[in-house]
């Protein structure tokens, strides 16, 4: 039981992600979480004015069910299958964040500096979440997939477009962390 309560190593998590992808293909579907954002637009009525959202969202109910399961899985893992554990970050990483003024680094999954209600209700904190979310939603649909659709499914199928997209993911991530973060937090 202790093995389950402790954080799981990469060599357990990675193959399990591949098995999840494989299971969905076995069920006749494709692993792609970002498609749900488009489905939610359609449910909200975006299909009336925009062709891109004019499709039968009911065909995507299976994927929304995966989302519901993911929420439940997050709850189970966090509240029932975990003991309080600090994230075992590289001390160099911790030091860089403390220079940005972060506190309690790695004590929870998300930093209070970004996700606590105090942070969210400040202009800076709210802007970070809205800009970050917008870029994720816009970018993933422009690129035709996210980490699940491109990095795991696409690369597993040796798709060149997915390799290009993943290179883009890293290009964007490196620009954000190394060039933009010093401007936001420095």
């Amino acid at each position, binding site marked *: 039981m202790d093995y389950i309560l402790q954080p799981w*190593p*990469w060599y*357990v*998590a*990675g*193959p399990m992600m*591949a098995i999840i992808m*494989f299971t969905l293909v076995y069920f006749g579907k*494709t692993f792609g979480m*970002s498609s749900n*954002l*488009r489905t939610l637009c359609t449910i909200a009525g*975006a299909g009336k004015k*925009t062709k891109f*959202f004019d499709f039968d969202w009911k065909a995507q109910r299976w994927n929304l069910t995966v*989302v*519901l*399961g993911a*929420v*439940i899985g*997050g*709850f189970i*893992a*966090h509240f029932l*299958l975990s003991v309080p554990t600090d994230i075992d*970050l*590289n001390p160099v*990483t911790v030091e*860089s964040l403390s220079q940005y003024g972060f506190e309690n680094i790695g004590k929870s*999954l998300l930093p209070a500096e970004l*996700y606590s209600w105090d*942070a*969210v209700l400040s202009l800076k904190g709210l802007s*970070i*979440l*809205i800009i*970050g*979310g917008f*870029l*994720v*939603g816009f*970018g*993933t*649909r*422009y*690129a*035709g997939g996210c980490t699940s659709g491109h*990095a795991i*499914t696409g*690369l*597993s*199928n040796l798709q060149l*477009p*997915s390799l290009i997209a993943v*290179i*883009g*993911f890293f290009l*964007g*991530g490196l620009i954000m*962390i190394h060039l933009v973060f010093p401007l936001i937090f420095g």
Partner: protein
Amino acid sequence: MKFIKFLLVGVVFGIVLVKSEAVSWYRIYEMFRFESFHMYGIIGSAVATGVLLMLLTKKFKFKNIEGGFMRVPDKEKGLVRYIVGGTLFGLGWALSGACPGPMYVLVGTGVFSILILIFAAILGTYVYGVLKDRLPH
């Protein structure tokens, strides 16, 4: 009842993402600074396992649950959309620490401020849909 299997897939997905800390903003930050192998190990071993499973699928012509051959549709050819869209996604991923799977999983861990991020992501997808025909792909 046919949805139960998808619910279970989602539950396992959520558990793996939390237990491996892949939903942690800190792990994403650490990854983009190349200061830990952890995330590379997850993505790398997922892809290695996935490549193996898909090669076996093609070689032995596995059937899916509906009786057809198991397959994944090819991605459309292109360059601009993948590199530009991918880069925009990467900027948002690194800033928020959450991609379109983890953002739902985090709701389950009790971080309700993530709902703002999800709302913004839906908005971003909507704006893409509106501008789609005017963007280079």
